[in-house]
């Protein structure tokens, strides 16, 4: 079965693209056919992390109808089995994608003939980002163990919930019912998507539980990037515990990825970190993560973290 992973999380600079590129490479190395889709529209740079120059073709050709097939613009990379759909060539106004165009792209992504589709998303919580995130069979949140990043991650998670709920309500033609109640709620500001669920359940709408189940059906995992010794190792598990307690399941913790200053150096030099430093704790963390995604056994050798 095809698996689509979206890689997001409100904060910029948390390493979403690095993780997308690294997981893409590692999955491809396992022999899976993988495509990376750069959906950080207007600020795409996945190709740089893959050690490549600006791709000649990409999403733009699909959007301006030069080609009818998104698969056409999936360019091969220096890594066998790994393909990249770049959005570098898109116009500078691409970040404000039209609704119809967005639907077309979403539909095409869902039909891509690859075993693994990784979507690299931009920071922030604009509708495009949220809608692209929701394409996935599993959403991966990337955060760093810092208050700022964790704050943004919670906002991102709540926004995703709200977006999903709103879309479903609109589809079921029930949005207007909620709108009235939301308007009365603390000056019309929805602080938590759970307020919305409580309204639905509170009104004894049969569908209330349906929407609860809808949210429970979403599958999310958390990744803590740039992990250093300063904070407790349990932080990831604590975060997932909190999410599962307060935000409806199911959240999973995929693991910590150790900080390594050479990641920055290799990006500067436009090298592929995994290739250049394969025997680092960071790469072994990433490898374990890739193996978890494909369900393969974890790596037997553990390398001690560099303190």
């Amino acid at each position, binding site marked *: 079965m095809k698996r689509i992973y979206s890689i997001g999380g409100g904060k910029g600079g948390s390493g979403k693209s690095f993780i997308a590129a690294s997981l893409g490479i590692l999955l491809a190395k396992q022999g899976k056919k993988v495509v990376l889709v750069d959906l950080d529209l207007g600020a795409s740079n996945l190709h740089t992390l893959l050690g490549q120059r600006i791709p000649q073709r990409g999403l733009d050709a699909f959007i301006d109808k030069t080609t009818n097939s998104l698969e056409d613009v999936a360019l091969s990379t220096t890594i066998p089995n790994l393909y990249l759909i770049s959005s570098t060539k898109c116009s500078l106004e691409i970040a404000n994608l039209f609704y119809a165009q967005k639907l077309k792209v979403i539909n095409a992504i869902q039909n891509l003939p690859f075993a693994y589709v990784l979507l690299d998303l931009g920071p922030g919580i604009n509708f495009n980002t949220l809608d692209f995130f929701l394409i996935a069979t599993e959403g991966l949140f990337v955060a760093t163990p810092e208050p700022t990043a964790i704050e943004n991650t919670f906002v991102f998670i709540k926004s995703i919930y709200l977006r999903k709920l709103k879309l479903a309500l609109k589809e079921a033609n029930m949005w207007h019912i909620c709108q009235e109640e939301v308007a009365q709620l603390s000056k019309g500001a929805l602080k938590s998507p759970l307020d919305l669920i409580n309204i639905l359940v509170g009104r004894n709408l049969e569908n209330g539980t349906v929407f609860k189940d809808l949210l*429970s059906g979403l599958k999310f995992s958390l990744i803590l990037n740039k992990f250093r010794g300063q904070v407790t190792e349990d932080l990831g598990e604590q975060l997932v515990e909190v999410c599962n307690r307060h935000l409806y399941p199911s959240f999973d913790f995929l693991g910590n990825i150790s900080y390594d200053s050479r990641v920055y150096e290799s990006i500067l030099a436009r090298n592929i970190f995994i290739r250049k430093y394969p025997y680092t704790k960071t790469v072994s963390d990433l490898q374990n993560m890739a193996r978890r995604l494909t369900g393969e*056994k*974890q790596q037997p050798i553990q390398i001690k973290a560099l303190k």
Partner: protein
Amino acid sequence: MIKKFNDLNYYELFKIQYNASSFEVRQAYKNILAIYEESSLATYALFAEDERKAILGKIEKAFSTLIDDEKRNAYDKSLVDIGEIPKNLLTAKERQKAIPLIQVNTAMTKDNNLARIRKKIKEQGTGKLASVMLNRDFISGQDLKNLRESLGIELEEVFEATKISPTALEAIERDDLTNLPPKIYLKSFLKSYAEVLQLDAKQLVEGYVKNMEKS
């Protein structure tokens, strides 16, 4: 489907079983506090100040109830009355409590017990068996059980030394995923277990968790 946070009873809040020992209550309290206290990174910016206050208030109340035998019994009865827990669970709890009665004067027996375990370990020598187990990448509950049994240590002795309830210990040794405590508690249980058997706690926890995730 999870219940809303406010509707959780104290046991659900602490994620412990109805017959959890006082040690488990203490552990759970420590862990839950680490998540919800003001300085916690895990809930940073998730709650408004009054929300956090309410949550912490509930946690304090839960702890002071569960740690006090008299209060806890009354609370259990009230849960039975509203049908939250079936009656027979209360009797099950009595059974669980019967075991702690073994150690009447706690301080003495605990030391004796530990000394006894230490002596057994010294006589049998954990060295080789333990290092073989710890060097494996995946450590199962069965491995742990085998080691314990080869040292001639009873499960009850581990219970006395660690105060982890026999049900939890058995679940750990049986790799009984459905009955294992939540992962954050599990880790501290494994650490205590490792200390009793004089094993490297970090290696044991890593191996066990890996083995758990594999299955």
